[in-house]
């Protein structure tokens, strides 16, 4: 327990070591540590951001999917409606066409009937004349009795 000059020399050594640590040891290590902390913090923040974005994206994709489904069902609905319409229209057109054909046929028939009647009428008139001629047993001038024939014809109408 004798205090001597060693104390002073040790104090000097101590101050030199303190100076060395303050000047050369602490700053670079602190810088490295702080920089790494910053890198880690940035990485964590980026991860958090990525997760958030993923959440958003999945939400958006769900939205898009739902919309697409809705659109698809709309389209199907429209198509069904359109199909019904087309069927209806086809039916209507077919009916119209049929009606038209029927009408045309009827007109034809009427026309045919008319011409047949005409022919029949002429034939009947001739038959009447021939009959009358036979009854009268004489030539009847068709031209002289045209008015009578016409009258008969008119009656036959």
């Amino acid at each position, binding site marked *: 327990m004798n205090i*001597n000059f060693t104390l002073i*020399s040790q104090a000097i050594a101590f101050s030199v070591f303190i100076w060395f640590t303050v000047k050369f040891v*602490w700053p670079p290590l602190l810088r490295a540590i702080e920089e790494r902390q910053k890198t880690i913090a940035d990485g964590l923040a980026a991860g958090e951001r990525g997760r958030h974005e993923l959440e958003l994206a999945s939400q958006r994709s769900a939205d898009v999917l739902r919309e697409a489904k809705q659109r698809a069902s709309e389209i199907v609905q429209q198509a069904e409606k359109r199909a019904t319409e087309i069927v209806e229209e086809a039916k209507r057109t077919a009916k119209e066409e049929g009606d038209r054909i029927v009408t045309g046929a009827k007109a034809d028939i009427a026309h045919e009937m008319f011409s047949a009647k005409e022919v029949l009428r002429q034939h009947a008139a001739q038959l009447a004349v021939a009959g009358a001629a036979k009854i009268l047993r004489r030539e009847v001038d068709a031209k002289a009795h045209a008015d009578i024939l016409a009258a008969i014809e008119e009656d036959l109408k």
Partner: protein
Amino acid sequence: MASGTELTPTSYIDHHLTYLTTKVSEGSFWVLHVDTLITSLVLGVISFGSIWLIVRKATPGVPSKSQAFIELAVEFIDNEVKNTFHGNRHVLVAPLALTVFVWVLMMNAMDILPIDIMAWVTENVFGMHNWKIVPTTDVNTTFALALSIWFLMIFFNLKVKGVGGWMHELFCTPFGKNPLLWILNLLFNFIEYVSKPLSHSLRLFGNIYAGEIIFLLLGMWAATGVSGTIFGSILGAGWAIFHILIVTLQAFIFMMLTVVYISMAHESH
């Protein structure tokens, strides 16, 4: 060991507690313990030098194993300082704590080296008959550290609080501002300022010195015969293992007190 003369327990212990001295000047104060100084300087240069070599190449990326080890120690110390000291600790206090911890730890750790083997090495390899290898068993070392920190404490008291502020603190705390209490306050503070470096240094010195004495006593047991040698070795090993704790703990306590004293100098009461 004892050169030529008869080896008695007293001479054995005396030999291990004798410093290698040199006279720098006349008078009993101007004596230098060369062994203490050289050992502590070598330890300091080795530890701070190697830390510096590792830290010089410190990377913010993935650290090497040695860098990670240094960072572990540094962050441990930095955390302790952060909990106690509220200011910019990176300017001085945290590196100071690192210096104190590493240096004291290294000096204390010399105690674990087998004392007689080291005596043989210093005598036969370096040719030094007297060489104490544990600088912290020299009260000069612990006082040098404690007093340096004490002066830093005074310096920060003056720097942070100013002369007036510090005087106010000396006279008006801890009992109160009443002029009747001034003398009492001053006396109290005086005792505190004297006891701080004393307890700071003597705690470290006492622990390590006592540890060394126990090693010496266990070593002396070997002189009694084979059984003494065996028991002495076993107990010596046990004490060395326990000493690992004491060595680290004392270095840590010394560091923490350093931080606490400097922090107290920064804070007004």
